[in-house]
């Protein structure tokens, strides 16, 4: 049972380390999926919009961690 729990936590840990960072990533992916399936977003530029949002999440997440760790 303990091993199963460890495996489940480890698998979740593959994708989630910082919960706010994971939540922001999920929000971007969810919003993009909604926009793409409802054809709100132009297919030729949509991919780069997705990249721009994910890059912003990365930089925002790093800055958040840097400020939190500041002594």
């Amino acid at each position, binding site marked *: 049972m303990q091993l199963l729990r*460890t495996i489940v936590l480890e698998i979740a840990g593959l994708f989630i380390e910082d919960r706010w960072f994971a939540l922001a*990533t999920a929000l971007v992916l969810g919003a993009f999926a909604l926009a793409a399936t409802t054809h709100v977003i132009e297919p030729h530029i949509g*991919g780069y919009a997705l990249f721009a949002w994910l*890059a912003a999440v*990365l*930089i925002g997440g790093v800055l958040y961690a*840097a400020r939190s760790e500041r002594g």
Partner: protein
Amino acid sequence: MLAAALPAFLASLVEFVEALTIVLAVGTTRGWRSATTGTAAGVALLAILVLAFGPMLGRVPLGILQAVVGAMLVFFGLRWLRKAVLRYAGIIALHDEATIYERRVGSLRADAARPGFDWVGSGTAFNAVVLEGLEVIFIVIAVGATAGALIPASLGAAAAGVVVVGAGFALRAPLARVPENSLKAIVGVMLSAFGTFWFGEGLGVAWWRDDVSLLVLVAGYVLAAALGVALARRAHARPRRIPA
């Protein structure tokens, strides 16, 4: 073919190094019988999982597979990239296999061996092999399944296993010289780029010149990571304002 084999090789290299560190710690403290028993049991469980769930992948529609695996790759890749950026910026400590090895050796020595089967030693090796092995399986599926390149991705991962296990057993020491942090940064960039590409593709994005866009995404994530390192260093160095 190389587009799937290379990321699978590099990402699996990191996972194999982590598993090997623990298996070596078990072997040197509890004996090689415990280490090999735990490792063999772990490999057997992973093989059963692959045989049981592997064929199901072929039945999932490609668009759904691309979107789901793409999303998982984005989570996985950005997590590694964020950590690598924080390490390069000096905000969190660098990953050090030698320190991890020493710590593991200390805890295994403290737990005195009992007569009979060594459950602690074998269990530790088993856990390490199963957990790191699951990550390797996920990487192979994520990189290979969406591109129809499961075999090159599997070969890339297998090559990483041969390199790491061969080097580890030749040296009988953890592979502390493997630049794990740099590898994690490179793999983080590649997996994030693949994930963004597949997630978009699965949802109907028309990528500029198809696969060439992957190179644009890789360059974009490298730039974003470099910008992240610079901004994080500045933010971390700035003194905190104390209210009057």
